[in-house]
């Protein structure tokens, strides 16, 4: 299956936020869509700038429970910035014309739960959620008795 087909069949929840989105709004987004584990910060032109993991958000918001904190974490704790300041710049992406097989490989290797998909202009075109993939595997696994396969 092509990635372009997948994102039509399994449309992603809203995984993008603007660079200046404040922390409480990011938290609300995660809470509104419990299967979301990554949010992507995109510019007004639709270019991905970075991503905020669910775990990173929890570490910042629950920082008082961390017994050991370095200076960066202390300063982050008392001066929480918007999305573009807490985001991580490293992320992996998928292309619309890729086979889902290859993308799943990268998702597992880099431990990504919401993989952003880019179009030909390198702009955000959708995302692939790992929970959706697991659900589809279970569903099509039953149907595979009839010769179907998730990734072909």
């Amino acid at each position, binding site marked *: 299956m092509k990635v372009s087909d997948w994102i039509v069949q399994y449309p992603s929840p809203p995984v993008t936020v603007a660079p200046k989105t404040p922390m409480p709004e990011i938290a609300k987004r995660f809470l509104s869509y419990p299967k979301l584990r990554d949010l992507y910060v995109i510019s007004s032109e639709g270019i991905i*700038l*970075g991503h905020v993991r669910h775990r990173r958000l929890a570490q910042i918001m629950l920082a*008082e*429970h*961390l*017994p*050991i*904190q*370095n*200076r*960066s974490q*202390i*300063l*982050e*704790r*008392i*001066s929480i*910035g918007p999305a*573009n*300041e807490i*985001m*991580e*710049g*490293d992320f992996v992406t998928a292309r619309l014309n890729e086979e889902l097989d290859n993308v799943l490989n990268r998702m597992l290797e880099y431990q990504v739960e919401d993989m952003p998909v880019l179009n030909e202009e390198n702009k955000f075109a959708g995302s692939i959620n790992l929970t959706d993939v697991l659900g589809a595997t279970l569903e099509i696994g039953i149907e595979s008795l009839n010769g179907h396969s998730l990734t072909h």
Partner: protein
Amino acid sequence: MHSDFLIIGLLLGCGLFIGRVASYFGFPRVAAYLLVGMAFSPGLLGDLIGFRVGDWIDQLTTGALGIIAFLIGGSITIKQLRRMGKVILGGTAGESLGAWLFVSITIGLLLADRGMEQALPVALAFGVLAISTAPAATLAIIHQYRTKGPLTNTLLGAVALDDAIGIMSYCLLIAIISGDSLSTGIFEALIEIGGAVILGAAIGWLLSVIGGTIGESGLRLPLVLTAVFLTLGAAEALNLSILLAAMSLGFFTHYFSRSTANRLFKPLLELEETILLLFFILAGIHFDSGVFQQNLALIVGYFLARFAGVVVGATVGAKLSSAPETVTRWLGYGMTPQAGVAIGLALALSHQDLYLETGEMILNVILGTTLLFELMGPLAAYFALKQANEINIKRKRIRHESV
């Protein structure tokens, strides 16, 4: 037993063990590391095992201090400073100024009473060393009692920032005092400080560019260490302030790397405990019981003057920043712990030409007062947070998970 490796292994092992014991009984690990180093100083166990302080120790401690300065610089961003607000910045500035002023005057008077020729530069140096605090001890209390409120927030910001002020003040003092006259001193200081900032910025930019192209995580630590040591070496060769250059490197690496900065700092942060363990033990080895005993008056004077200066300065700074009453009254008490940066700066000071004769005395006074501040500081922080009604739970035992 003359193998240096065996001795280093023994020191690290003892430091780890005593550090864990100290944590268990509620004492900061830093104090334990220092005590281990002091126990192995040449006048004590060091003689027994044939351990001698060699030149390599100075190189190692300078490198460790450079890494600490790099991490301090890399932890601060301009955007965070803007958001922190005037209470944190005012309280930190007040604490720094108060500590510097009270300690400089007190030590100056004590040294003048002794008829010491270099009373002024030594007193000013002690003043600069008094500025930095130890965030770990305060953080341990805040975490242990799950404190929350304006005092907790202000304290966290202030203890995280004032080490940077301490390093910058130290570099400024050394740059000015090294000149032949005040005017040439100020001119040379501008060159030394400006050059260090530019050097750090240039290598920081290069590090962020190269770091951005390296995908393999295992290569990031050697890359960052390369940048730190190149900066220290180049600053030394160009007669620039090496600590300021390292701090500038950290700051600009973070600035230029932006959202990918964490991946460059992470490997070094994971090494931080090892660096601190090594650093404090090696600092403790410089302990000299004879010098220590001769300067008990200075130790007591420094301790009392710093305590008073920190409390008064933070109070005035917070008041001028229109801080809430609880912050104004109690901020200073939470900022009394002192450890790593002060010791590191005292060590660095002893290599400066002007302080070659007095460096040992200064270092031993700081070693002694660090132990006092590390024992008393957490109690003062607890007292302040309790008075401010920001303690939420009671714990039977304080565990210093952080150093």
